[in-house]
């Protein structure tokens, strides 16, 4: 390995590593094309469509967060929306309380990520260190999400206030003053510079897109690093990983917290996007949709899960305009994919393409596919 620019090489290598599908020039050209198309979206999409696309991108964070723990580490959580909702409520509560004093929502944004992590550390710490079986963790997370939702539903009583924020029961979180019924949108401030990202604006769309690309690339590096190998080790054979001297529980807990941070970010962005957060954010539909996106796209690959979320969200929106059967169709898609392509649609298609390419390469008598040096 040459010493010059080795750090850059290292990170580029991580982006291209073996734990993620899609390597080499064609994939990255396609990736750039998609990002460019999304970035050019505001040029030829209506304002309403851009608002919807912002929401699709937010779903992408949820898919990535579940893909990381379920696909890579083998820890399925049916209650991923718990972190989404906690993040959303945390952002809202802090923003309402600090906006007037600070003039920005920097701390609220951070709180929307950190508080779900703390929550995940407590819940996950108990579950993983007690060595609860995987299925129990999955169901327990769903129960936790539903229990929080039930609690939030019965907070209509005016006593349920946190500072200036009123939890508001079924009406959703809002400030405890009659003149300003909405939650603050994202306002970043650095010294004198203040930048507001109104959820209905193009700037919010670019912010979300930028964050999503950053999280996606960051996770690619993470899962291709040695940490990613630990994750896959925990998924494939926890006993063996433990025998090699790694603390499976600690790896599971840490990845659970990272996943909670991403889901919390999604909840924060969602709350800022609609200036609205509601107990239904903890509900069954919210939880199951994340599982559907990831399972249908392909749980063992970040790109597949992300594509699954974006495509299915778009499909749901189209269906929603024609009647109330979007969720029914989503359920049917999930069941059919689990039966016909259990590894996920995107993963299956990519496997087929890969096989065709190798077959052709072999048929032409070309040299065997290049083996990447470590």
């Amino acid at each position, binding site marked *: 390995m040459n010493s010059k620019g080795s750090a850059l090489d290292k990170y580029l290598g991580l982006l291209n590593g073996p734990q993620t599908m899609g390597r080499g020039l064609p994939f990255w050209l396609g990736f750039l094309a998609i990002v460019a198309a999304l970035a050019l979206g505001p040029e030829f999409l209506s304002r309403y469509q851009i608002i919807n696309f912002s929401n699709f991108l937010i779903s992408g964070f949820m898919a990535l967060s579940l893909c990381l723990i379920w696909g890579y580490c*083998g820890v*399925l959580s*049916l209650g991923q929306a718990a972190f989404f909702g906690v993040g959303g409520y945390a952002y809202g509560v802090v923003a309402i309380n600090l906006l007037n004093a600070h003039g920005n929502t920097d701390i609220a944004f951070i709180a929307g990520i950190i508080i779900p992590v703390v929550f995940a550390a407590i819940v996950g710490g*108990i579950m993983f260190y*007690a*060595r*609860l*079986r*995987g*299925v*129990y963790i*999955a*169901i*327990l997370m*769903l*129960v936790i999400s*539903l*229990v929080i939702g*039930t*609690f939030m539903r*019965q907070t209509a009583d005016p006593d349920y206030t946190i500072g200036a924020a009123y939890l508001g029961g079924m009406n959703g979180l809002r400030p405890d003053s009659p003149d300003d019924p909405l939650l603050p949108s994202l306002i970043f401030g650095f010294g004198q510079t203040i930048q507001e990202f109104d959820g209905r604006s193009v700037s919010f769309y670019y912010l979300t897109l930028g964050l999503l690309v950053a999280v996606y690339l960051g996770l690619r590096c993470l899962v291709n690093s040695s940490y990613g190998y630990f994750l896959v080790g925990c998924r494939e054979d926890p006993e063996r990983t433990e025998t090699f001297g790694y603390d499976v529980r600690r790896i599971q807990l840490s990845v659970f917290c990272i996943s909670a941070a991403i889901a919390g970010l999604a909840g924060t962005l969602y709350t800022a996007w609609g200036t609205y957060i509601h107990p239904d954010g903890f509900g*069954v539909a919210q939880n*199951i949709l994340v*599982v*559907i996106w990831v*399972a249908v796209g392909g749980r063992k690959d970040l790109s597949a899960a992300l594509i699954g979320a974006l495509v299915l969200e778009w499909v749901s929106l189209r269906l929603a305009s024609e009647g*109330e*059967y979007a*969720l*029914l169709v*989503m*359920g*049917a898609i*999930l*069941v059919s994919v*689990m*039966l016909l392509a*259990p590894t996920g649609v995107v993963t299956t298609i990519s496997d087929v393409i890969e096989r065709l390419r190798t077959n052709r390469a072999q048929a032409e008598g070309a040299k065997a596919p290049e083996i990447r040096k470590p």
Partner: protein
Amino acid sequence: MEEFALIFGYIYQYLDNIGFLILAASGLIIIFGMMGVINMAHGELMMIGAYITAFTYYAGVPAPIAILLAGVGAGIAGIILERLVIRFFYKQLLSSLVVTWGLSLMFSQGFLLIFGPSILNIPTPFGNFPIDEQTFGIYRLVLFGISMAMIAGVWAVFTFTRFGTHARATMEDPEMADALGVNTRHVYALTFGLGSALGGIAGGMFALTATISPFFGINYTPLAFITVVVGGGANVITGLLASVLALAGSQTLVNNLVNVYVGYLGMMGTALIILLVLPRGISEYLERRKIRTERASGRE
């Protein structure tokens, strides 16, 4: 007399909660406890039972027969599901969890499309009896009695009948059972169907006390699971009884001390603590203790 009413009130609530949990979990102890399939659509099978009960009841069928029809309907639905979907997911816990959750979404959303979000009600039969100044519904005690009868019935079926022996053999070692001439495909389908039928009957029984809507199921699935999981798989029936006694006990207690929501939380908390101490459920612990005491007495 006042104290008697108070104490009776607690016992009544305790029995009510026990009956509720046993009915909710009775189908799942077969499907999850024996077959090892996580059926997230169990609540929806109960919902099917509740709808069948409601429609046949309003068509003029007497309630007990309507409830039996609910069992038949849910059982048939269960057998169809097993043949079409579930059988591809044996021994894949997480995948069966996900696919059955998809089924549950399809059922609840499908019923929402067909029957709309409106709520159905069936009057609760048998009336009340007063003690001191409080009144107690007789039907709740009937529920408790039937839940006990159902447990006894499940035990009897799996202990004494030919089908029960075949089913236990198949769950223990499918290949060996197959080699010995058991039609394991039928056994799997029928066992799943039986579990679904029990769910349907439970749904029908609850239909007489609860409101029926397309989202009926979600109230029961997690509870039923937790009850079965806390009971453990070593001996599903003693496990279920022990788990129900503990969970219903904590729920009744906290319910009276604080409120219904915290009572629910208390039950979940108790379940979590039991699972943290005994990760494989209560029955596993009881079985091990039994073996230990048997060994100890054998040595003397």
